């Protein structure tokens, strides 16, 4: 039992740790559906990789980076709401993918990316890649935390104070694309989206500082992964959905505890 459980747990924990600070930035910037959109875009990536005879993961990574860059550009130019722009890009890339595979029907592509990749299918040999990704991502975010938070707070103020806001925005979106596509393989698009968004929401009422929120979100994410895995073992429910639901329970608990102190 334990030899099945621990790689899944370790993988889930790595994903949760990686997701926590990125997820906070995501929520603050109102990009909560970034992971979802990325999952939609993978179809186009798969289609293009066939067209250009490159490996599938190359196509997918390429389209993920493309989405990040397009979004960074649109956010700069138009002052349209970020979620609507994301929705536009997501629908557009998915549609382009659907049309691409129409002209390319030999492709053995999945129409929908997996909602839940399989944590339980993780083997210890998958962990180094995940861990490496987590180190790179967390290291970068840690090193640039202050300017990232400041430009999230107000891009104009940050720009005046000499923060390279455009470059930071691109970097953040690229890191996110990297984290999501890395985690999507092992955890599935729904689970990684949930790990990005729900822990920050759950701990928001408890946090008074950005850093505290990121740390608490990491704790909440680890707790959700652990609780979800435990529940999954106890009641033999599917792992991915169980983790999502345990994160939602944390969110509800956080709502009920502090009744009056808003902000």
């Amino acid at each position: 039992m334990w030899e099945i459980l621990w790689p899944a747990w370790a993988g889930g924990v790595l994903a949760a740790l990686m997701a926590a600070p990125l997820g906070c930035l995501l929520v603050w910037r109102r990009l909560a559906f970034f992971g979802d959109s990325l999952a939609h875009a993978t179809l186009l990536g798969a289609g293009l990789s066939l067209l250009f005879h490159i490996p599938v993961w190359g196509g997918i990574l390429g389209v993920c980076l493309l989405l990040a860059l397009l979004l960074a550009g649109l956010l700069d130019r138009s002052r349209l709401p970020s979620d609507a722009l994301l929705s536009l890009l997501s629908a557009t890339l998915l549609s382009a993918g659907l049309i691409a595979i129409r002209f390319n029907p030999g492709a053995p592509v999945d129409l929908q990316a997996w909602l839940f990749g399989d944590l339980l299918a993780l083997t210890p040999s998958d962990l180094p890649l995940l861990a490496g990704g987590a180190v790179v991502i967390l290291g970068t975010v840690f090193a640039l935390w202050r300017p990232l938070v400041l430009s999230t707070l107000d891009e104009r103020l940050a720009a005046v104070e000499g923060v390279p806001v455009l470059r930071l925005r691109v970097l953040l979106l690229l890191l996110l694309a990297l984290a999501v596509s890395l985690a999507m393989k092992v955890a599935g698009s729904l689970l990684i989206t949930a790990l990005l968004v729900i822990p920050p929401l759950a701990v928001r009422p408890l946090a008074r500082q950005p850093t505290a929120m990121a740390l608490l979100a990491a704790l909440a994410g680890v707790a959700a992964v652990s609780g979800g895995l435990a529940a999954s073992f106890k009641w033999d429910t599917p792992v991915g959905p169980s983790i999502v639901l345990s994160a939602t329970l944390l969110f509800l608990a956080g709502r009920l505890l502090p009744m009056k102190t808003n902000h």
Partner: protein
Amino acid sequence: MTGPLLELTGIDWSREGRRILNRVSLTVQRGEIVTLIGPNGAGKSTLVQIAVGLLKPDAGVCRRQPGLRIGYVPQALTLDPSLPLTVGGFMRLQARKLAAADVGQALAETGVGDLHDRSVHALSGGEWQRVLLARALLQQPDLLVLDEPMQGVDLTGQEELYRLLAEVPRRYRCGILMVSHDLHLVMASTDRVICLNGHVCCEGHPESVTSHPEYLRLFGWQGSQGLAVYSHHHDHRHDVHGCVTPSSAQAGS
């Protein structure tokens, strides 16, 4: 170190067919306070945004000294409540590493020393404005750009803060570019006043005048013939945050 910190020359800016800035030129030297005055819609905020690089002029040149560090207080700044932040955390959210004592001192100087651990989302309008000013000062910038920094600050506070601002250029060897409507308070602490109204309509060193008749003449400019003034026979003194020290118990008026 030589040359002006900021030099705007012949700035034009138009939107929707209306020319909002018309050949505006402006310089700010190290150690001086330049104040922009002018009616609403005169283009003051636009000019300030061009000066800090947030807007690109249609014509004209905006030259900032290379490596210039700017501290900026915009006319309005709203924060998303999903990002938790205390006043202290907000103060520290900048490139320079800061000592805790510096943060406390900057807050105390703008009269909000006791707000260090409060959430920025729960501040009153005037408190937030004071915090913004404290943060801009804390950055020890080469150039302070303040767009109506005293909005919503109470009268006592305005006077204290203008006096504080007057010391700043000498203390930090920086320049200040400020927008303000508080003519009567501004004039005391300003080295140069630029009256803007699409174009620069007048500009010069304010005369130092200390007594009230001059002040009334300023009001006269606004045609304040019918202006009545309220006398507040005050029976107690307030400090900015809180305690009232009554000198006679009853409410006076």
